[in-house]
């Protein structure tokens, strides 16, 4: 089965419903993780990292843009509106991705935690790789094309966080302890990132992506290549499932900051 255009996808209500749900997840994940990344601007551990991290963040926001563009093409509304004006209840990003970078806030006393950032970005970029690899074979051709494009750029992002992960795991005892503490925390919260939400069965049925269990296995195998001693507990969903529209106050804070300028003058052309 191959669907070549938005018009064609919209002819089948069940198909387009599952398809849109999947794209919202991809768009919202990249949107939130790049916002959390952008909050490190000027605060990264050293100047070279600042350049690298902001470049990764800008590019990831570009990926979010492409996914929102696909939704616009499918008749979901304008990109700006999709990014800025949707209510938290309809946001589909994994909850772990909206989590604050640490204590304080960007303008005052940003006591952000680098261990959280390294763990989160490494786990996320690994997940993004396996999810997009599966999507290159998606029945919706415009999405498969975008996945292929993103995968040409994303190895740089993943390689960057893999280096950090390796170096900190093989560094001082304090570094290792802090990474391991954040890994244990991630294990309690990352579960919903790996899920597909309400339309999981349909997504697989319509060949939009592989099944949830298979994706989870692939992710676990990839992560284990870099981190030999993974937490032994099963993955949890401490705060619920972002794929089903459940979110924390951290998402409200993120959206309020992200949309502050946009909401101050919606008619402005930038």
């Amino acid at each position, binding site marked *: 089965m191959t669907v070549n255009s938005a018009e064609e996808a919209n002819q089948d209500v069940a198909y387009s419903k599952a398809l849109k749900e999947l794209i919202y997840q991809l768009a919202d994940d990249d949107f939130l993780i790049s916002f959390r990344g952008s909050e490190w601007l000027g605060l990264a551990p050293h100047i070279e990292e600042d350049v690298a991290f902001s470049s990764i963040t800008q590019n990831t926001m570009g990926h979010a843009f*492409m996914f929102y563009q696909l939704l616009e093409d499918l008749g979901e509304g304008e990109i700006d509106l999709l990014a800025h004006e949707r209510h938290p209840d309809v946001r589909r990003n994994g909850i772990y991705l909206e989590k604050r970078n640490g204590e304080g806030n960007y303008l005052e006393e940003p006591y952000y935690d680098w261990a959280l950032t390294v763990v989160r970005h490494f786990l996320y970029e690994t997940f993004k790789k396996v999810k997009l690899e599966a999507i290159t074979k998606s029945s919706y051709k415009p999405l498969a094309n975008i996945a292929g494009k993103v995968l040409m750029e994303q190895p740089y992002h993943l390689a960057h966080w893999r280096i950090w992960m390796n170096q900190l795991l093989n560094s001082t005892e304090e570094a290792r302890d802090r990474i391991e503490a954040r890994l244990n925390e991630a294990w309690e919260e990352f579960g919903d990132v790996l899920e597909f939400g309400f339309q999981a069965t349909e997504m697989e049925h319509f060949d939009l992506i592989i099944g949830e269990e298979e994706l989870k296995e692939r992710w676990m195998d990839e992560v284990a290549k870099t981190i030999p001693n993974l937490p032994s507990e099963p993955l949890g969903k401490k705060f619920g499932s972002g794929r089903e529209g459940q979110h924390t106050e951290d998402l409200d804070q993120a959206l309020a900051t992200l949309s502050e300028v946009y909401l101050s003058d919606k008619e402005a052309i930038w």
Partner: protein
Amino acid sequence: MSQKQEEIRAVLRTVDDPELPNVSVADLGMVHDVLVKEGDVFITMTPTFAGCPALDFIKKNVKTAVEEMTWVESCEVHFSFEEKWSTDAITEEGKRQLKKHGIAPPPENYQPGEEWTVDCPYCGSDYTSMENVFGPTACRSILYCTSCRNPFEAMKPVVDYVIT
């Protein structure tokens, strides 16, 4: 290729990338297809990096340049993801111009995710080291030449992704 298409291609060799002065969008390999229907021109381009903020400027600059031609009534520019841009699409002229501006062309035979290096665009030495894979724009990296002691930039290699 028709006479008109040739003329359009020639114009596109004069439209520079906003962030790489003197390197045209044509020499960067971004022009995928040129269609001419009497006075109407349709250009399909392939974006370099997805997060590149210059894409809108490029679109506008191409449109403006083409519409300045006397026989052109309208020009539509469209970015397509069906065809994927890779650094292999950069022409020899593009590589020459990049070097002139202290930017080394991307290495050949790059394996995604692997480390890579290039020769110094100033002195040609291979005694260089990677300072930061991420440079001032998404498409560039920062390197240092230990031979002539110049920092320089290189186009980051981007090639088609093969799932292993």
